[in-house]
Structures are given as structure tokens and as C-alpha cells.
């Protein structure tokens, strides 16, 4: 096996989603009504900024899906930490401490997911379905069922389209996504931990047989994913400037869809960070293009639903050919 071959194989696994993204971009930029605006830097910047929350959550979700699990509580977790950041600021905590509180909440929710899944031996779908309700409920409880207003701080500049030191070019949130994506790709592909995550998802029994602490691996993965949701919660607060307990309702499905469009397999063992990011952008640009075209919301929903099915079907075909 030549290493060249190997790299080529790696690239082609993300090629499908990549072609999909190019197609989406090409179709909208050819639409006469919006062709002059769609590929403008300003529009791209705004789409990417809007994608930060989904992208962050999807990074963690990729790990979970690679282990063969799923996290339905991601969006509720995001809302809970968003609310907690606002709540903490109102308590008079310094912004960085408020952000830490949001992050820690996310991590804690993720840890409980992992803990319950491995201890109770209940499938992730059910545990996280329960947690989805619990986290959302907790968020509404903390916020007394309304939005929490909070004074503006530097936290609210994380998602600005015009970052303060001009050389940043894009918002700190986008930089965060870029840096963390690279780190997560390395973690998944180049480290022993990443190898263990893949092994657990590919065949948990084999992984155990090979001396991998499969339960511990899963708890770490769910905690990691929770931390990403917490981070996304901070970003959401930054964007909204309020703590909204009803924010991101239904977003967990977008997150899962992004991972799956990017080549993740719900039966585990497969998925890549690059693919996931491409999946995120396919959906964001589709939404954006549809909106610019003035197409109604229901039309977007139908298209995105169809895209998910087509993407996964194509992925299956690719596999059966191998």
C-alpha cells in the first residue's frame, strides 16, 4: 500500500459531499435573480456566521455518531447553556466566568448522557430523548419561561460580522470553528483515542476484546459533545444578546443531518470532520439560497428533507460498490 494511495482514499471519502456543496453553490449562483448577490463575500460571511452554532454541535455529534450513538439532546443542551450564560451575567459574574458556566453545563449534560447510557445500558436514542426534554425544561425553569435580558459585554462580540481588531476579518466564532475543526480532525484520525472511538463504533465487542475501555470511551465522547453544545450555547447568547430558552428548537435534527450528509453512518464506525463541515455548509447555503430566491419556508424544508435522503442513498451506493 503506497501512502499516496491512502491519502487519495481519504480525500475521495469526502468527495461526494464536496461535489454536493459545489452543486448547491453552482445552482444558486446561476439563478439570474440572485446571481449577483449569492456568491458575494458579504453573503458568504453571513451564512458562515449563521452556521457557527450548528457546526460546533456537529463536531461533537460526529464523534458520537462514529461510536454508533446519537445525541438528541444537543439543541436543548445548547439552549440551557445559552440561558445559563445570561443568568450568570445577571448574577454579576464576569463574562468569562459566565461563559465557563455555560460550557460546564453543556459538559455536565453530556457527561450524564454518557453515564446513563453506559450504566443503565439503555440505548443512546432513548437516554438522549429523555435528556432533550429535561434540558429544555431546565432551561425554561431557569429563565422563568421567558427571555433573560443581559447587559452587553465583550461576549456579544464573538459573533459580530465586523470583528474589532480588523485583521481578524471574520468573527471570533468562525475562527473558533476553524481551529476546533482542525483539532477534532486530528483527534479523530491521528490519536489513539480517535482510533478507539472508531473501533467502538465499528464493533464494540471487538473493541472490548482488544482491551479498550468502551464505556469510558463513550462517556468521554458524550462529555466532549456536551462541551461543544455548551460552546454553541455561548455563541448563541453572543448572537442573540439574550438567554432564550426556546432557541434552537429542532436544531438537533439539522446537526444530525449535517453529520449524515457528510458521510457519517448511524450504525457507527464512519464519519469525518471534513465531511460534517461540508454537510453543515450544504444545508446553510441551501437555506440561504432559498431565502434569497424568496421561496417559501415549506419549500426549503422539502428540499432539505430530500437532500438528506439522496445524500445517504448515494453514500450507500458508494459503499456497496467497494
Amino acid at each position, binding site marked *: *500500500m503506497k*501512502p499516496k*494511495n*491512502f491519502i487519495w*482514499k481519504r480525500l475521495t471519502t469526502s468527495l461526494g459531499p464536496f461535489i454536493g456543496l459545489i452543486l448547491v453553490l453552482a445552482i444558486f449562483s446561476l439563478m439570474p435573480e440572485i446571481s449577483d448577490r449569492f456568491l458575494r463575500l458579504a453573503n458568504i460571511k453571513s451564512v458562515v456566521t449563521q452556521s457557527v452554532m450548528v457546526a460546533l454541535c456537529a463536531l461533537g455529534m460526529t464523534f458520537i455518531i462514529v461510536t454508533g450513538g446519537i445525541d438528541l439532546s444537543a439543541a436543548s443542551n445548547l439552549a440551557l447553556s445559552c440561558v445559563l450564560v445570561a443568568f450568570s451575567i445577571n448574577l454579576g459574574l464576569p463574562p468569562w466566568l459566565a461563559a465557563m458556566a455555560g460550557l460546564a453545563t453543556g459538559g455536565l449534560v453530556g457527561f450524564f448522557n454518557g453515564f446513563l447510557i453506559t450504566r443503565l445500558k439503555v440505548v443512546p436514542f432513548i437516554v438522549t430523548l429523555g435528556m432533550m426534554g429535561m434540558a429544555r425544561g431546565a432551561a425554561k425553569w431557569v429563565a422563568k419561561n421567558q427571555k433573560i435580558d443581559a447587559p452587553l459585554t465583550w461576549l456579544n462580540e464573538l459573533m459580530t460580522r465586523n470583528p474589532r481588531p480588523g485583521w481578524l476579518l471574520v468573527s471570533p466564532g468562525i475562527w473558533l470553528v476553524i481551529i476546533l475543526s482542525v483539532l477534532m480532525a486530528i483527534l479523530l484520525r*491521528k*490519536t*489513539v*483515542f*480517535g*482510533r478507539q472511538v*472508531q*473501533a467502538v463504533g*465499528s*464493533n464494540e*465487542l*471487538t*473493541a*472490548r*476484546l*482488544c*482491551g*479498550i*475501555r468502551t464505556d469510558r470511551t463513550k462517556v468521554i465522547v458524550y462529555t466532549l459533545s456536551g462541551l461543544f453544545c455548551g460552546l454553541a450555547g455561548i455563541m448563541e447568547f453572543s448572537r442573540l444578546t439574550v438567554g432564550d430558552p426556546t432557541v434552537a428548537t429542532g436544531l438537533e435534527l439539522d446537526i444530525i443531518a449535517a453529520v449524515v450528509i457528510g458521510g457519517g453512518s448511524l450504525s457507527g*464506525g*464512519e464519519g469525518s470532520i471534513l465531511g460534517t463541515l461540508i454537510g453543515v455548509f450544504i444545508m446553510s447555503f441551501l437555506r440561504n439560497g432559498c431565502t434569497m430566491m424568496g421561496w417559501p419556508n415549506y419549500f426549503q424544508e422539502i428540499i432539505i428533507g430530500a437532500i438528506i435522503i439522496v445524500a445517504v442513498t448515494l453514500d450507500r451506493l458508494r459503499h456497496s460498490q*467497494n
Partner: protein
Amino acid sequence: MTGKNQLLELSSISKRFGHNLVLNNIDFDLREGEVEAILGENGAGKSTLIKILSGAYQPDGGVMKLAGEAYCPSSPVDGLHQGLAVIYQELNLAPHLTVEENIMLGQEVNRYGLVNKKKNLEKIREVLKFLHHPEISPEVRVSQLSAGARQVVEIARALVRQSRILIMDEPTSSLSGEDTSYLFEIIKKLKSQGAAVIYVSHFLEEVRQVADRFVVLRDGQVAGRGKISETSIDQLIEMIIGQRLNELYPRVPHQPGQTILECTGLKSRKMTQPVSLEVREGEILGIAGLVGAGRTEFLRALFGLDRVEGGLVVLKGQSFRPVHPELSIKWGLGFLSEDRQSEGLALRMSLTDNLTLSYLQPYRSHGFISGRKQRQAAAGWVERLSIRAQSPAEKVWILSGGNQQKVALARLLHQEAAVFLMDEPTRGIDVKSKSQIYEIMGRLAAEKKAVIFVSSYLPELLGVSDRLAVFHRGQLIAVRPAVDWTETSLMKAAVTGKTDEDNGKEG
């Protein structure tokens, strides 16, 4: 000669996958009331031929005739309707459904879509009675049946459909000796009714017992055929592997030394009784017993796969309680699972990953892993064990059974285990791979390692082991040097739980 009408006739069947000619001009015929065995190594083309017969694959060339008429099934269902049923190695039953529901699936006696349960049950009882298994209740869930009983249900399903030809693919690989002889009786009954059976198996002794004629495939071609009664097992093996196998059980000289592993009163939650056993370095210890006698459970407890409730293991002078495979591996134990498909290997991962997964230390630094070094090491093992694979990056599911088993075994060698626990190390693999695995076991013993292996195949237990232990209903009933056992005495001990000790056989 009565009832010897030609039932199935294949002439010059060919099949290629890409550039690979998998089947090359295969001729085959089957007569009423006859059992014909298809023999061959893994990858010789047996499975492909079966799939063509069943309708799962279409041949690229050649003609098939069923009872004189052209037979070209478009799918397995079509094949089934035309009277040809396949009973696969992994049973194809829905575990949540009852025996009745499974048997009648797709052919329920009904009226306007409503199932006529009474008629169904009648029909099934009749068939089960014919199969000499009236004790199987049609209303029990399949998940509650033993492997042997499930086999009977599969056959019943084929009979209810009035299949004239039954194809059995390794039907006994998950059966105990008792269930196997039931199966053979059923086959005899089917024969007497004029049905024909195509029997695919690696167990040549079984084939001799049950088949009338045989065809040997090698590299996609017919390498020999004839009457089984006129052919010896040695001749069969020669045809299968294409060369004379000098010795099926190559003995690598080795001398047992000091005790390396000793377990006292080891009991896991899944074991019914505590077991004490010791093995010496440079020794191969075979474990015999019926399926379900607690042999697998013992090995799993020793490796820390099942929760251990009591007992102590002393390995190289240090004692420990097996709680998790991670620790066992560190202590120097290696475990080969009996179920390489669902537990032993991560089929969708690469050969390299599977081989190195239990021992990544040499390739890690600061948590990072060097894929290049890992692949180099794997390539070395591929060569040493002559594993047939395109590259070390190949996914394991592509490999043949024998090569998969070698990958699983290579993992233990790679992790530098001192004591090798192997559960059915040669199940479902071809003769040549078997012989290679025996040789590896011998070499390990020569290197002062210890091997404990569980097998249901008596000749290999006797041919490879230095000492033999027998389990019966969860209990270890005897451990003796292999030379003191015979196939008969082993079988007797495994079945009855009693040994010939009283006869003064103990030396």
C-alpha cells in the same frame, strides 16, 4: 436403481467479478434421493455456486436445468418458488417470531388476508413430526430454541414449501454432536422421500457419513468428483488443496516446562461451577466437551470478559483477578473469540487496525498514532502468516474466512501474549489454513508460550494438544496427557461426564 431421475443439471457455469473469474465452466448434476457434497477451500467458489443456484447471483455463462426444464431464477425468492431452498450457515430466522410464524412466513394459509392459524399449526405439526421433532412447539418463540432446534425449524420451512432440493451450507458448524446426528437422520428421511440435498461442509468426516457423491472445487474449477464411498479422506484433502498435505497436524517439537498460569476456583457469573486448571509454558492444552459444556465461559472468565465472582489467577508468579480485558492483555493473556464475525473482528475496519488494536503502544507517542509504522508492522504479519490480502489497508470483511481468522490470530501474536486462549480457532476455515494455524500453535509452544484452546473437533484436539481437559455440564471432569485419550474415550467423557479411570487407564 430407483428414483434416480436427474433433478438438477448445470453445464459450464461461469461467473466473474471484475477481472476475477470466480467460477470457470462448472458442470454439476444432482439426482433424486441423493446427497451431493460440494467441497473446497475458502474462496474456492462454493458460496458463489450456491448463490447462483439459489438465484442470488446470475451466472455469466452456462445453462441450468431443473427437472429437465430451463432454470434461471431471478432472485432467491424465485428459486424458492421453483423448489430450491437454501439453509445458510448463519440461520435466517426472525428471533422475535414464533416457530409457526417463521415457518409460514410468506406462505401463510389465509383467507382474505386473515391468517388461518389452525390450518397453519396443523401443517407445521405434521412437518415437525416427519422430522422427528414433535417436541418443538410451534407456538414458542424462536429465540428460546437451541441452535439445533433452529436448524430443524429452517428445514421445516423448506419442507412446508415442498422444496425438492435443499442446499445446506455448513449446517453443523454451530451444532453439537447430538444435534448433528439428528440432522443426519433428517437428511436420510428426506432422501427416502426423493428430495435431493447439496451439502457444503469443511468437516470431511461428516461428509463421508452423509453424502453419496462429491464435487471438489479449487480456484473456481472442478478439481475432482466421484462417489464418496470410493474415496478416502486423504484423497479428498489432496483434491481440495491441490497438493499432498504432508501432515495435517504438523508437530513442532516443544517441551513443557514450569507452570505459567494457574487458576484456582475461577467462577464467573455465567459459569455454573468453579474451575481450577493450570497450564505450563511450552504446552498446548486442549479443552474438549459438548457445545454448552462451559468451555467458552471458562476462557471468557479467564480473560475478564464476563464478570468474575470468585477465584484467583496466578500468571508468571503474580496473582490477579480478571476484571477487564485491558488488564488481562497487560498481564500477557491473548484471547481469540469463537465468533470472529460479530466479536473477534471489526469487519468494517482495516486489516491493520484489527491487527494492532489490542497493542497500539509501539505506534503511539504523546497520544498520537503513526499510521505508517502501524501499516508497516501489519504488512510484516501479513507476510509471516501468509495472509492473502491486497494490502494491509484492506477492510477485513473482504477477506475469506481462513484469512480473517489469521488476522484475528495475528493480533494475539502482535500483542506478544504469553498465554494464548483460543476458542474454536479453526472453525469454518479451510484445511490448509487449519494446518497453518496448528503449526503456529506448535511454534508458540516451542517459544515457551502456553496455548489453551477449545475445540469441538476431536481429531484436532488429539492431534495438536499435549494435554487434554474435558468439560461436562460446566464442570472440569478430567485433565490427562493427550496420549492417554482416544476419540472414543474423549467423546464418552464429554457426553457422560465419566472417564475410564476405573479401568486403570490413568498412567
